[in-house]
């Protein structure tokens, strides 16, 4: 099918084309809901079964990073929305600027995620052969924790052992938590990376002045995608970081 200007051959009008694109994007997003849904279900069942271990494991993640990332990501949603607006009202320069801002915020998010993953690596909280919930308490100094924090963790671990049946169980069940943690945030991060790629493409196109009030479907659709990824995080944050902070 050949293309006349912005109109692809299979469509009759630009309007029809835009309608199809939007509809297609939304349809894609609901498949994403169910995709993440399978993980959420697995999470729910396990969290219910292993409530104590899950809340303990959740407390070993740094709340501050998660909170900052939430702000960063919602901020990037704002700039994304603004770039759609700029395209709609024909401010071509602004489109590019907002897209770049979005990309920067997205990268910051991923950077912070990287730091968090690194911390978990240092603490031996990455599921696998070397997973060890007791690594930090057994090797004071190896983790980036203060003495009080370590002492606190020790007592909590002790209590936990009594509740769930010893260190083996603690390790097994917290490994489940971290499997889910990495599964969910990893999949989310993968979506962010794809989104960043899309943003790069948009920035290039937008510098060429491609997006106008008449035709800005790509900006809008990538926007939808980006906001969706934001929504996933909006749920991940309380589920993974805020289980039991009191």
């Amino acid at each position, binding site marked *: 099918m050949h293309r006349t200007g912005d109109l692809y051959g299979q469509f009759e009008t*630009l*309007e029809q084309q*835009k*309608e199809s694109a*939007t*509809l297609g994007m*939304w*349809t894609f*997003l*609901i498949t994403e*809901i*169910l995709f993440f*849904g*399978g993980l*959420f*279900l697995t999470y*729910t*069942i396990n969290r*219910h079964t292993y409530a104590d271990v899950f809340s303990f494991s959740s407390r070993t993640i740094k*709340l501050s990073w998660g*909170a900052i990332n*939430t*702000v960063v990501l*919602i*901020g990037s*949603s*704002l700039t*994304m*929305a*603004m770039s759609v*607006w700029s395209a*709609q*009202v024909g401010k071509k320069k602004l489109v590019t600027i907002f897209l770049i801002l979005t990309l920067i915020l997205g990268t910051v998010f991923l950077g912070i995620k990287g730091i968090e993953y690194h911390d978990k690596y240092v603490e031996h909280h990455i599921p696998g052969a070397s997973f060890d919930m007791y690594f930090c308490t057994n090797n004071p100094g190896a983790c980036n924790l203060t003495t009080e924090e370590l002492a606190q963790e020790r007592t909590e671990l002790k209590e936990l052992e009594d509740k769930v049946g010893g260190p083996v169980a603690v390790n097994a069940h917290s490994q489940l938590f971290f499997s889910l943690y990495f599964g969910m945030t990893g999949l989310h991060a993968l979506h962010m990376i794809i989104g960043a790629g899309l943003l790069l493409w948009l920035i290039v196109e937008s510098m060429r002045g491609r997006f106008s009030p008449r035709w800005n479907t790509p900006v809008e659709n990538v*926007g*939808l995608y980006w*906001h*969706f990824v*934001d*929504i996933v995080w*909006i*749920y991940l*944050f*309380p*589920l993974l970081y*805020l*289980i*039991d*902070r*009191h």
Partner: protein
Amino acid sequence: MSEHIVSPKIYLGIFAALMILTATTVYAATVDLNEHFPGLNVIVALVIATCKAILVILFFMHAYYSSKRTKLIIFSGFFWLAIMLALTLSDYGSRTWDLH
């Protein structure tokens, strides 16, 4: 095509609301609500998250201004998610119920 253009003011307002909700949810997590009602902490966290998600969907994603069809599609996504969660949990939840 009559396309609704959402003004930046609304976007900023939504952003502010989202920030407030984020702060609330972090704060709520540090208070022990479970002693008032078991599981209240989770419920509060999820209700707040859902409010945030709804704001994002309605305004950032323009669902508020979209056609019935789009709304139906969005709804069906969440509805199916609900089916999956609810029916599966109904199995787990009722395993120990008494049969008499």
